[in-house]
């Protein structure tokens, strides 16, 4: 027996949602062929088939293969000619280092006999088995320091921007618009571009890097903090406002404790991003590992490039583990 339902329940999928999904799909199809997604899929598929040995050759597989193979073996040791090292003291060698003497035959014209004579020239080399690894570690540390200070500057600028730009804390809607526009402007200038200008202003080195990272990240921390502040549960805020609490008191007592986990997650992500971007802006001379990466890449020393890429990967992985623990502690 069929019983009529007394109540109508709201539909999960209505005509509007279906129409929106179809429209989104059509839009993706249209833009997809403009950015050659179809070709990307075809080439990638071909590369996979070639790797599996099903088809003969693939342009993508060959291109990637030749460059990736050059990254190995990675370069860990360093080798320097002793005569070129200033104040070299053979009694005090660096850790694990040794001196290698290389004999090279040299043909010279003897001015007395006027004949070409062969004789051996001995050159001493300082070989450090992990010399280049230590060098990369020191450069990586510099990048981490640049990223850390970039994050500190981002928080110092981003938090006031967020307080002025959050509708529930801002003193006036006009100030909110100005603060939102300011953080959008900071976000709009990519680190790489601002680093180019800052390198001209401050010279090569970490200052330009710190400022470029800090200003850009201040833009998105200003936005993310403000969004988190606006999303905080309004009930405690309303209760305190009803009792005449000042805006900053409401922020301190009713918003900050709620938004703190998101603030911390955003800040840690900013730091993580700054480490990665720190490697990129080094390319334009703003200090750190990027400067080293660019130098080695330009000299076709792909073994060194491989070491640098692995170092960046290890640092990002370590930061991710630390960030996970920090987020769990502050949940």
């Amino acid at each position, binding site marked *: 027996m069929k019983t009529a339902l007394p109540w109508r329940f709201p539909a999960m999928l209505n005509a509007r949602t279906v129409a929106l999904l179809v429209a989104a799909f059509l839009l993706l199809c249209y833009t997809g062929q403009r950015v050659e997604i179809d070709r990307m899929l075809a080439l990638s598929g071909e590369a996979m088939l070639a790797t599996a040995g099903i088809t003969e050759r693939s342009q993508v597989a060959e291109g990637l293969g030749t460059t990736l193979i050059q990254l190995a073996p990675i370069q860990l040791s360093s080798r320097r000619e002793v005569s070129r090292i200033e104040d070299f003291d053979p009694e005090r060698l660096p850790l694990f280092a040794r001196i290698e003497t290389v004999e090279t035959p040299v043909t010279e014209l003897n001015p007395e006999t006027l004949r070409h004579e062969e004789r051996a020239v001995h050159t001493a080399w300082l070989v450090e088995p992990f010399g280049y690894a230590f060098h990369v570690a020191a450069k990586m540390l510099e990048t981490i320091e640049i990223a850390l200070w970039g994050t500190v500057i981002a928080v110092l600028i981003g938090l006031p921007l967020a307080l002025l730009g959050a509708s529930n804390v801002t003193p006036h809607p006009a100030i909110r618009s100005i603060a939102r526009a300011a953080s959008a402007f900071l976000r709009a200038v990519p680190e790489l571009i601002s680093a180019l200008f800052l390198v001209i202003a401050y010279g090569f080195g970490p200052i330009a890097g710190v400022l470029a990272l800090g200003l850009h990240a201040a833009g998105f921390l200003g936005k993310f903090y403000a969004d988190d502040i606006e999303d905080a549960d309004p*009930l405690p805020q309303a*209760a305190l406002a*009803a*009792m*005449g*609490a000042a805006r900053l008191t409401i922020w301190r*007592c*009713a918003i900050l404790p709620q938004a703190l*986990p998101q603030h911390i997650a955003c800040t840690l992500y900013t730091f993580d991003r700054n480490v990665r971007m720190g490697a990129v802006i080094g390319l334009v001379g703003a200090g750190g590992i990027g400067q080293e990466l660019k130098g080695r890449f330009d000299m076709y020393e792909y073994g060194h490039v491989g070491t640098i890429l692995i170092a960046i990967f290890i640092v990002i992985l370590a930061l991710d583990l630390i960030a996970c623990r920090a987020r769990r502690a502050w949940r």
Partner: protein
Amino acid sequence: MIDVRIIDLSLRHPGGAEALANVSLDIPAGQFCAVLGASGAGKSTLLRVLAEITAPSTGSMLYCGAPSDTALRRRIGLIPQDFALCGRASVARNVMAVADIALWRSFIGLYPQSERARAARLLAALGLEETHLARRADSLSGGQQQRVAIARALLHRPAIILADEPVSSLDPATGEATLALLRNEARDLGATLICSLHQPDLARRFADRIILLDAGRIVFDGTPAKFDGDITRPRLLAVGQ
């Protein structure tokens, strides 16, 4: 001492339901005024309008003959029905949130001795312990959270206390003790206490005056002695028809 005057207050929800209809009241300073009514009668709405959390469609409120301003709001103590504590903040920070102290002190949690003493006295009188101070508000039980909300509302020595079902999460004995404390504090402060309640017997025992709401209208306004104690009759009749 602040008296409250409510003039022709109405609130119509966007859907068309009338939450308050032409409510007018004169509440003298220092009076304990209990607002009774069945669920959905408009008790919480009235208190939310008085606390200026919800704006009325028409009508106004006067405090000592003047509309409210920031200075007056600082003299209001609000106990919301949902407690409205900041769950992730400690009990201490919640209670001290509206303490009348310098902003920087509240920022770093450096509360003056007098405020600490008052908070400790209120929380102890409400049956909480020192160990609760450092705990996060959302780690407490509903009844404990409600008592923290009461302490927060009383800490800054308010002249008007707006309490929205302040004993709803408490067992009868604790509820009675809490309501007695609320009345005694209000008396000591000379505060006007407007308190919505579900329990007619508590209202009759503690309040100076009872107001019964039904569908947003005042259907009874008088002394506890004249009140017959039936708050549910009008709504149940409506459902039964």
